């Protein structure tokens, strides 16, 4: 029997992975071949998707990008033996994009069957929890603190300190909330883990629950991710059946299309059944979170990284990275880029290495003009800032942020005034309405940018936008209003020539 691995990741399905699976199944049975198809997550090399792999005595051999129409020629070329074919890539681990990575959080993604607990265990799963139970609750918190792990959702708060706070707060009930409301454009790391290695989330949350004394956890997944919701629910059902969740109860909650619910307090409101409005802090969720109880709210990547930290030791993780950014970051290279995909690496690569080197420049073949890092609230960086290392502090030092690790590449056809306008428009659409600068300022900001675009009192209106951004930055409770100035002001600062041109090409068309 030969096993052929085909990703079931939504990114691979979006470009035809299901059609490829059907065609391979039909073709194999037509030829009477003993072939089993295994649906996995994605390796994250999206320009090669659908990328299939076949198990051979020499290891797995990859082919891609495969279309349904290739099934016949692939089997003619003896796919089941790893035979030569124009689409044959070779061993996946030899592909430079994969070879250069340090996969810790994504070690299993794209390799294992996400529905198989046995596969998970065979690839090192549940070693972290076993170690946690050995070293005890204070030992776990100590290890997570020593690893230097910081919140991968974007805020970068030290995970160990958050856990310690919850552990030390007495209460009748405590909660672990996994934030999988991955709304930033250019990011899909949470989605890939849920679809490719969901048990790592379950294990990470179980460890967190053990460490702080919580017996119930919620995974809040955005509704735009139906595949991830299915995959996570299936994995929880398997874990329950196999007795892995006897002491820790896990439940998936589905968002409803609100970006601001990715903010931790809005997310808690949403789980409680209310409008996703941001809460003022203090009290911190660690003291008074979900249903008024001490709550750990962590990003999904943070939680999925914990098992590996415990299994292989905090020192091993902390040895990677630069400055105060320890360990690895799954960088998601997206947008107008030749080699788009997920690249997990220690902190410290420069933006230029990521975009030009790993990403290979634009998909359109035109010059890279701007890169937005960290989602819709992240700054637009010009080529002049390509020496910035991927590191929380280095990006902050240049009025930007790394956020959840999304890198969106734009070529020279981008109109930065339109991008600045969009940032404010998006803030207006998604504002929860609690803070006036965000709710009203965003709308006034769009109007003011429109005047600048129309060439109406350019300098006075630019000064007004800057003033408005100051108000947004300092007068908003959360990052939506507080960080919308990043894309707006960076666009103005680095691409002033785009503001106040008499007419936009798109408007003229």
């Amino acid at each position, binding site marked *: 029997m030969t096993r052929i691995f085909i990703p079931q990741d*939504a*990114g691979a*399905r*979006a*470009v035809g992975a299901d059609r490829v699976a059907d065609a391979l199944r039909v073709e194999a049975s037509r030829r009477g071949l003993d072939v089993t198809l295994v649906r996995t997550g994605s390796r994250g090399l*999206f*320009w090669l*998707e659908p990328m299939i792999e076949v198990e051979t005595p020499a290891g797995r051999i990859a082919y891609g990008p495969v279309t349904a129409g290739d099934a016949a020629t692939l089997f003619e070329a003896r796919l089941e033996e790893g035979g030569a074919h124009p689409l044959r890539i070779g061993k996946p681990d030899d592909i430079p994009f994969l070879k250069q990575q340090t996969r810790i959080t994504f070690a299993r993604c794209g390799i294992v069957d996400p529905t198989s607990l046995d596969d998970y265990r065979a690839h090192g799963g549940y070693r972290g929890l076993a170690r946690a139970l050995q070293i005890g609750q204070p030992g776990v918190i100590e290890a997570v603190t020593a690893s230097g792990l910081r919140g991968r959702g974007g805020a970068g708060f030290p995970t160990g300190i958050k856990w310690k706070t919850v552990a030390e707060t007495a209460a009748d009930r405590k909660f672990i909330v996994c934030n999988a409301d*991955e*709304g*930033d*454009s*250019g*990011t*899909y790391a*949470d*989605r890939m883990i849920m679809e490719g290695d969901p048990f790592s989330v379950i294990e990470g949350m179980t460890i967190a629950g053990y460490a702080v004394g919580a017996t119930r956890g919620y995974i809040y997944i955005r*509704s*735009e*991710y139906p*595949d*991830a919701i299915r995959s996570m629910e299936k994995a929880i059902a398997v874990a329950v059946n196999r007795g892995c969740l006897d002491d820790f109860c896990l439940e998936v*909650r*589905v*968002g*409803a*299309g*609100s*970006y601001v619910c990715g903010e931790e307090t809005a997310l808690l409101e*949403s*789980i*409680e*059944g*209310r*409008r*996703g409005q941001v809460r003022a802090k203090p009290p911190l969720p660690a003291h008074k979170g979900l*249903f008024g109880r001490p709550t750990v709210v962590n990003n999904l990547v943070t939680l999925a990284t914990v098992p590996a930290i415990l299994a292989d030791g905090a020192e091993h993780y902390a040895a990677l990275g630069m400055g105060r950014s320890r360990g690895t970051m799954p960088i*998601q*290279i*997206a*947008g*107008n*880029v030749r080699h*788009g*995909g*997920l690249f997990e690496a220690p902190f410290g690569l420069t933006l230029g290495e990521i975009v030009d080197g790993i990403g290979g420049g634009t*998909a359109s073949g035109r010059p890279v003009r701007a890169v*937005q890092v960290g989602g*819709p609230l992240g700054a637009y960086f010009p080529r002049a800032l390509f020496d910035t290392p991927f590191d929380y502090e280095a990006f902050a030092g240049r009025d930007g942020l790394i956020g959840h690790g*999304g890198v*969106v*590449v*734009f070529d020279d056809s*981008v109109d930065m005034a339109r*991008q600045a306008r*969009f940032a404010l428009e*998006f803030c207006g*659409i*998604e504002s929860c309405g609690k803070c006036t600068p965000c709710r009203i300022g965003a709308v006034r900001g769009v109007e003011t940018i429109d005047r600048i675009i129309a060439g109406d009192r350019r300098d006075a209106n630019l000064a007004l936008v800057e003033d408005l951004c100051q108000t947004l930055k300092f007068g908003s409770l959360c990052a939506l209003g507080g960080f919308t100035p990043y894309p707006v002001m960076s666009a103005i600062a680095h691409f002033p020539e785009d503001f106040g041109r008499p007419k936009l090409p*798109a408007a003229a068309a």
Partner: protein
Amino acid sequence: MWNEAQGQEIIRRHAGREGALLPILHDLQATFGYVAAESIPVVADALNLSRAEVHGVVSFYHDFRREPSGRHILKLCRAEACQSMDGESLAQAVLDRFGVTWGGTTADGNLTIEATYCLGLCSCSPAAMLDGQPIGRLNGATVENLVREVEPQ
């Protein structure tokens, strides 16, 4: 269409659940295609909330529809990664092709087109979702496939 007995049954399934409002609204929409105005007092009563509170939640979240949608729902991504691949002009072409604006439903009730801000398919931009199925690397040809898929035979 809204049916009170069926609605009550959905609400009953969530009895005793903490923070049950969003799960109930999702189930109501999955069953009826939208959250009917008639359902609001029923849900409010079951959860011991005011009608205003339930209305506030329904109207806050972009997902909840307050009227029936078309038979098919196409979500087109308008976020930055898709913008970088000229998704906006493609989206406009799709809207024009079906003669609707954002959020609109075709006259024959066959298709509703909605804007979405990121489907997590950002390395396969421009992206869309048709009836929950992801579609990436949208271009003129894939749009035509999509049109064939949704047009009544």
